[in-house]
């Protein structure tokens, strides 16, 4: 192998065919509203915990759709429900978070 002094970076491509959507489908069964999210980010922009904890419902749903683990983010949510009030699609985001807690076996 030749050392050229530079190398390949890890690709950021998302291969949706290879993503494990098990967690997303479990959530879909408990909170079907997740299907209508259009990633507008209203939930994230209104989130009280967001600026200091990194909480973002938009990112949480996107990560689930890409098969990533979201357990760590759940503990950042204060369940204040402001995101539910501003969602233009009327998704019960508070119930969405609680459903995820249930999937992960967390205390509510």
């Amino acid at each position, binding site marked *: *192998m*030749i050392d*050229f*002094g*530079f*190398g*390949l*970076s890890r*690709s950021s*491509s998302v291969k949706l065919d290879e993503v494990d959507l098990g967690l997303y489908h479990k959530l879909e069964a408990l909170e079907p509203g997740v299907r209508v999210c259009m990633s507008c980010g209203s939930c994230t922009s209104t989130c009280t915990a967001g600026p200091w904890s990194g909480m973002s419902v938009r990112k949480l749903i996107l990560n689930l759709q890409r098969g990533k683990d979201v357990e760590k983010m759940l503990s950042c949510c204060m369940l204040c429900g402001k995101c539910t009030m501003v969602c233009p699609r009327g998704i019960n985001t508070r119930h969405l978070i609680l459903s995820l807690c249930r999937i992960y076996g967390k205390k509510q």
Partner: protein
Amino acid sequence: MIYQGKQRIWSDYQKDIPADGWFYVRSCIRQNFFPASEKYFLAICRDLLGHDIYETEHHTTCGGIAYHSDTIPQETAMTIVARQFALMKEAGYKNLVTSCITSFGNYTEILETWREYPELEARIRENLWKATRREFDKPEYVAHASDLVYKYRSEIAERARFRLVDKETGLPLRIVEHIGCHYSKMFPHKGIGGAEYPCVLSGMVESWGGEVVDYPERRHCCGFGFRQYLVKANRGYSVSNTHKKFESMEPYHPDAIITNCPGCPYFLDRWQYVIAEQTGKTYGRDGFGIPVFTYEELAGLVLGYDPWDLGLQLHQVAVEPLLDKIGIEYDPSAKYLGVNKEDLLKPQMPTVLKCC
């Protein structure tokens, strides 16, 4: 939708390219990378098809490569371009055709800038007069050479000796088309098909019998990106871009790649060697790579020109498997002979990427 409505919408995406009366300006780097491409553009379009295309030995680089590498200010590039326009005026031509995609982007950007800021154009006129005692007229039309080959694609198809078809199976070859960013992304409406249906290369492929491969990263940059490559510390970005494209096109098993930019064929070709050395992976069949062609080279091949006269021995990826597939004759012993049959010597072979 009614047919007339469809026609009208489609016409918005077309370029009304003048058939003749072109002043040709070459690229500063293509003659090193793909030395026969510009020669064969003139051989095909001017000498074979009989179109009026003129070039003068007095023209220079457009300065675009230095401008995009952040080494000269735009006003310098503008004055260089103004001199090219002055040469065109002196030769009595009104339409400019550029060999290089970055030149096409550079000329178009400068003309658009002058349209927005006429006082800048006046200053450049003054600069040119002070420096060279020349005056210029702005071109009536600026085209890229691939626009002309696209326009003449049916004339080329009529004279073709070969088609982009597998001679064994009779099936069309699967071709990846890669359009340069400075053609399709700076001023998309200036390109054939606009941003939505860029068809300058796919039109050629389909006219010459091939099948265009659609794949996820089709419109991704080749990775050259000027300073991505020119600054060594950034070079990993360049090769990673190319790697991303090859990973994306691999499942579709393309037979060849056609490009219309100076940088794209160079990097899509040469990086296959680097990727093979770094990862041990090759993307063609049996350890070979996917051959990459300029549109002039592909036109030359279908017209039956000798592959070695077209300069295909200067490619990193071996072209012989594709030539065999199409049924194009070639003399393997003449691959590394120069124009006077002088032996150019066989280059060292890569350790991973298979070459002939």
